[in-house]
Structure formats: structure tokens, C-alpha cells
């Protein structure tokens, strides 16, 4: 089932000319209407008419989150204020909130993209969607809401919180689709169990989960406990909200980026250079159709890779892998890019539990050293030295094999690793700054 067959299955030789004409139009629009971009183009020495192919995208300047903050609240709008019909904003926990605006057409486009996402998940008219994403300035709730209505499904706008009431409505309304963060779905599962309602007997057959990073292991856990197909959805308020990319239920392997609206690139987060298809790096998105607040080459900070191999579902749009980490967290150890989340995943695989760990980076002579400290809890502990040494060796071997970095693994006592504000400080970089 494909919502917009013509666009979503367009051959690349049709898709790319469309992307190019939209890109050229976009560059002209922001040059004419957004002083921030006009200045940036002048500084970079690029004129809109110089964009002649998609390959020229790399000459355009990046846009960063800080640019949105510097232009708070409405400085990046490309249309008169009276054409803006909706405003969303991020929470602003790490600085000033980032604000985004939508024209009437932007809201319509967003709804149809979310309808595409629903259909990719096998959802259609007649389905009942339990929407536990928060409504409000956060884009999750309303994004899902308008998409379900556009599709013609029935939406239950329950929003977040009030878990006992959610469980009651899951039982009484019999939804077939659950939209929430992956972790909240497990919370709902537990609450349902407490209320004596077996989740697997509810008619929910699909879960559309996003707004936080999650792993393949977590997908298996959710699917087996809740008895549904769990699918990954991607989006960010700066670009649109949920529905920038969606995993299809057919392949369940990668998220289709809706390329007629968003132009993706993967760059090396350090040099900013474009990377060839398949390589892992930072996702950069250009909004091809956004009217109110278009963005050129927005650095998402999300680490992923792009897969252009045709998908079994028939969609031609490129697939991005599950988010592997954030470029802000990336470490370079002896020239190798390492994300703490990768080490965490390896630790989880090694013994199947959530470990407390810390990464200590140092330098001996010209060589970077990495020490991985892992807290020993009762499940890991053995009273035999060789068992513990074997565990150290196994972790070390996995890190070497999968990340290509030799690390020293050190088992430490529980609670010996510093915790601040409930969050562990995972990385201690003692290397001298150059």
C-alpha cells in the first residue's frame, strides 16, 4: 500500500530533475526573502543561478541549530507573518528554543507525508490510531494527528501521560495502531499487565515509534511483548516534524526519506565533506518544498547512512539506517570515529544487560589510549578470576572486531563511576588539547 504511488515510486531519472528544479527555486526564494541566507550566500561567494545540478548542492553553506537560535524567534521566516498558520518550537533544554513556522500549504504537505508514513506501516482507513505523542508545541502529537485524518483513519488524540486511563482506552476503543515513543510502549505494556489486560490480546497490530533513539534489540523486545510490528519513524521539528522518513513494514529495514520534499546528504561531521553512498556520517537535510521556514543543508547531528538499493516495497526513495548516535558525541581515537552508543551496544550484546560504563581517553606519547570501565554487578560477578578475565577479554575482542580500536577493559565496583544529576558521565577525555 502506497499513499502517493506516483511520487513514492518515481524512477530516479524522474525524481532527480524534480529535486533539482525545487532546489533551484528554493535557493532563489531564500536569497530573495531571508536576509540570513542572502548574507551567507554572499560570504560563501555563491549566486543562486550557479546551482545547475544536484551535485552543486555541496557548494551551499550549512545551516546549524545555532543559526535558528541566533534568529529567534521568527528571523528565518521566508514568508510574511500573516501567511504563517502554525508555530511549533523545541523545548529549549540545551539553550534557547528553536522555533519553526508553517504556511497552510506546509501543514497540508506535512499531513500528506504523515499519511504516506502510515501507509508504509500498513495502516489505512478503518484503522484506529491511539496517539500517545504529546500535543502542543512539540511536533509529535499534531503531526501524527493530521496525518491520520488525511489518511481517513480514526484518531484517538490521547497525548502523553495518564497511563492508567490510556490502558482503559486501549481496552475500550480497541485501537489497531499505537503511536508513541518506544520506551512509552513498554511502559504501557507493564501498566496493562498490572491492570490484568494481556496486551497481546488487544487488536493493536502496528506500533509507530520515534522521537528517541532505540536499538534493534529493543524492537525485538517490544514486538515479542506487545505482539505487534514495531516500526521506526524519523523527523525533527526544524525540518518538519514526524514523517521526514519512515520504515516500511514490507522490508522493515531502513527508513524511506521522502525525497521529493527533503534532499538528504551524508557528511563527515569533522570536515563537512560529502561522503559516498553507504558511508556512515552526519545526516544533512535540505527542505525542498517548505514555504514558511525553508532550511538549506541543515545539520541534523544524527549519525546514519544512506542505502540507495531498491526496496522490496516498491518505493524508490532512499533508505536511512536507524540513528546510530549524535555527531556531538563522536570521539576520534587514533583516527577512528567512535560513538559511545556503539560501545554501549557492544556491552549490551556481550552480556545482555544494561551496564554502567565509562570511557577514559588519554594519550601516551603520540598514541591515544582508550580504557573502558565496566561496573561489575551481581549478574556479571563470578568468584572465579578466570571467568572475570574471560569477560574482560570478550568485551575487548568485540570492541576490536567491530570498532577497530584496541581498548583496555577494566572491571570496577558498582557505583564507583560518577553520576551527576542522575545521568552518568560517560566520557572522560584527558588527552591534551592541541
Amino acid at each position: 500500500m502506497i499513499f502517493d504511488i506516483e511520487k513514492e515510486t518515481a524512477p530516479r531519472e524522474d525524481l532527480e530533475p524534480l529535486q533539482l528544479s525545487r532546489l533551484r527555486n528554493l535557493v532563489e526564494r531564500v536569497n530573495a526573502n531571508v536576509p540570513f541566507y542572502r548574507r551567507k550566500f554572499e560570504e560563501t561567494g555563491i549566486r543562486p543561478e550557479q546551482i545547475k545540478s544536484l551535485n552543486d548542492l555541496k557548494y551551499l553553506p550549512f545551516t546549524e541549530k545555532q543559526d535558528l537560535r541566533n534568529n529567534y524567534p521568527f528571523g528565518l521566516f521566508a514568508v510574511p507573518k500573516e501567511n504563517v498558520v502554525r508555530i511549533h518550537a523545541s523545548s529549549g533544554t540545551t539553550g534557547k528554543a528553536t522555533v519553526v513556522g508553517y504556511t497552510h500549504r506546509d501543514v497540508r504537505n506535512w499531513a500528506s507525508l504523515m499519511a504516506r508514513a502510515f501507509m508504509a506501516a500498513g495502516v489505512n482507513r478503518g484503522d484506529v490510531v491511539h496517539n500517545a505523542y504529546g500535543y502542543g508545541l512539540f511536533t509529535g502529537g499534531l503531526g501524527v494527528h493530521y496525518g491520520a485524518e488525511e489518511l481517513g483513519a480514526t484518531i484517538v488524540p490521547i497525548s502523553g501521560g495518564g497511563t492508567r486511563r490510556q490502558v482503559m482506552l486501549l481496552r475500550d476503543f480497541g485501537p489497531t495502531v499505537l503511536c508513541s515513543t518506544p520506551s512509552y510502549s513498554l511502559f504501557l505494556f507493564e501498566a496493562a499487565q498490572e491492570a490484568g489486560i494481556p496486551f497481546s490480546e488487544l487488536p493493536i497490530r502496528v506500533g509507530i515509534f520515534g522521537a528517541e533513539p532505540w536499538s534493534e534489540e529493543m524492537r525485538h523486545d517490544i514486538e515479542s511483548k506487545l505482539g505487534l510490528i514495531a516500526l521506526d519513524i524519523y523527523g525533527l521539528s526544524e525540518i518538519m516534524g514526524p514523517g521526514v522518513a519512515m520504515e516500511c513494514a514490507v522490508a522493515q529495514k531502513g527508513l524511506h526519506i521522502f525525497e521529493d520534499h527533503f534532499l538528504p546528504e551524508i557528511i563527515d561531521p569533522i570536515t563537512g565533506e560529502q561522503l559516498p553512498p553507504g558511508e556512515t556520517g552526519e545526516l544533512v537535510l535540505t527542505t525542498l518544498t517548505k514555504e514558511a521556514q525553508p532550511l538549506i543543508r541543515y545539520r541534523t547531528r544524527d549519525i546514519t547512512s544512506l542505502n540507495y538499493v531498491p526496496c522490496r516495497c516498491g518505493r524508490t526513495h532512499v533508505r536511512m539506517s536507524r540513528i546510530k548516535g549524535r555527531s556531538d558525541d563522536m570521539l576520534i581515537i587514533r583516527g577512528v570515529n567512535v560513538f559511545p552508543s556503539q560501545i554501549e551496544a557492544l556491552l549490551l550484546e556481550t552480556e545482555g544487560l544494561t551496564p554502567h560504563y565509562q570511557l577514559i581517553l588519554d594519550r601516551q606519547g603520540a598514541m591515544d589510549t582508550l580504557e573502558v570501565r565496566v561496573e561489575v554487578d551481581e549478574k556479571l560477578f563470578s568468584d572465579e578470576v578466570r571467568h572475570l578475565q574471560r569477560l574482560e577479554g570478550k568485551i575487548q575482542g568485540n570492541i576490536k572486531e567491530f570498532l577497530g580500536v584496541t581498548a583496555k577493559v577494566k572491571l570496577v565496583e558498582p557505583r564507583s563511576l560518577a553520576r551527576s544529576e542522575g545521568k552518568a558521565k560517560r566520557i572522560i577525555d584527558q588527552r591534551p588539547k592541541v
Partner: protein
Amino acid sequence: MKVEQISIFLENRAGRLTDVTRVLSQGGINIRALSLADTSDFGILRLIVTDHERAKQLLKENGFTVGRTSVVAVEVDDRPGGLHFILELLSNNQINVEYMYAFVQQTGKDAVMIFRFDRTDQAVEILQANKIRIIPGDELYNL
């Protein structure tokens, strides 16, 4: 016939052993036997104490990782060949000793060896069939 031994994970840094003995001392727990296995990074302290349940609880409350293992306490004749006889008996029956440590009774007559076997139940059977005295837990805790 088995004896409960507690084991504690210790980082190799000054004062950690003292932290353990302080907890036990304040809890009025007496150490009957001990052994310390160590590597460059960490050590495992194995203890037989008068009240292992309480010792384990107190140590856990103080943030230690504590394990519990069943071991066997065997009385060994205090004469040349006393230990050799027992080990030969076990090795003839393909029983592996994971680790062992010695413990001398207050009377000084016989030595006691604490064994951790790979197959504890079979080891106990063989020792009993050969009339080797195994000291039960209750007796050992209260010696």
C-alpha cells in the same frame, strides 16, 4: 554437607579490604576462613563467616558486589601425604578443583581444606564413600 562461602569483588586500591573488615566488624561478624585471589586490576575476596546471610546483606548495603558459592570443607590428616590422598581420589574420578585454600582449626590437630569443585555433589559422594570427614556448614560457622 556444603558450606556457604561469600565472595566480594574488590578493586585494587588502598583501603578497600579495610572497608570490608570494617563492615563485618561493626556487624559483629566473625571471619572463619578467607582467601584473596587477585589480578593487577581487581581481587576476589572469599570468606567463610559466622553468619553469611547477614554478612552478605550488610556488604550489599555498603555497595559491594557479593556472590555466594557452595564449597566443601574437608578434614585433612596432618601427616605427609594427607592432602595428596584426597586430591588423588578426586582426580581419579575426573573431578576438577576450581580453587582451594587452607584453614587451621583452633585445636591444631587437623588441617581443614576449603574446596570449590566443578562437580560439588559428586565430589561429596566420593569423599563420603572413602570415609573422609566433611565438616558441615553449621559446625564450621560455630567452631
